């Protein structure tokens, strides 16, 4: 498992290779990866990029906790998560999650769970830039609902 916060860009191929290293297809027939990128617009119009702030120490441990929760819940055979911070231009890669499981449904669910919970529980804050004007992004109700869906399912399990 690996959880990282970094400023530098990442290579999806390198992360995929790391995820699958020492992880035979007999146990990990399914691999799902997700990459989030910077959109060039928000509700008000075009933007020029974003800036991400984090809480050194807490952010890394929150990401690690998320990996452990997803691994236990979906029987993942491996999982990784990488989140960039600092100033990122439009189109740049922001976040990557990867999951390995015996079968695809657990791999898909594990990746989806990590992204939904990340947006709810990991201390990272996004600011959007348009020219010289910067605006902090407000937490979205739809993100809360997505996270709540997993928490409700948990209760029903």
């Amino acid at each position, binding site marked *: 498992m690996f959880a990282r916060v970094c400023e530098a860009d990442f290579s999806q191929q390198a992360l995929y290779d790391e995820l699958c290293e020492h992880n035979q297809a007999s146990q990990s027939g399914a691999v799902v990866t997700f990459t*989030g990128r910077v959109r060039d617009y928000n509700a008000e119009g075009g933007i020029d990029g974003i800036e*991400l*702030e*984090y*809480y050194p*120490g*807490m952010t890394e*441990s929150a990401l690690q906790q998320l990996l452990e929760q997803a691994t236990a819940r979906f029987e993942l055979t491996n999982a990784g998560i990488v*989140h960039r911070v600092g100033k990122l231009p439009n189109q740049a890669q*922001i*976040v990557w999650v990867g999951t390995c499981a015996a079968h695809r449904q657990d791999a898909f669910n594990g990746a989806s769970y990590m*992204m939904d919970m*990340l*947006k*709810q*529980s*990991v*201390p*990272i*804050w*996004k*600011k959007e830039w348009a020219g010289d004007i910067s605006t*902090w*992004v*407000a*937490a*979205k109700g739809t*993100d809360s609902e997505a996270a709540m869906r997993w928490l409700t399912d948990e209760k029903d399990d």
Partner: protein
Amino acid sequence: MKVKFFAQIREVTGTESLDMAVPADATIEGVRQTLMARGPQWQEALSANVLCACNQTLCDGSKTVSEQDEVAFFPPVTGG
């Protein structure tokens, strides 16, 4: 005790972190109230929807804190 601030709260207060003395039975809510009394910008920053952490773990206002703790105040998270 060390107190850290992030995102809007850091910007509005103009403060990344500060050290403050706390009484023996202090709670996070008590710390927040003490900070809000520092001035209008502190009131603005800490009166809205604020999350808090003690020693880098999310907690609520009733948590008791001591001199050795690291407390943080921040807005709802927006990563991903």
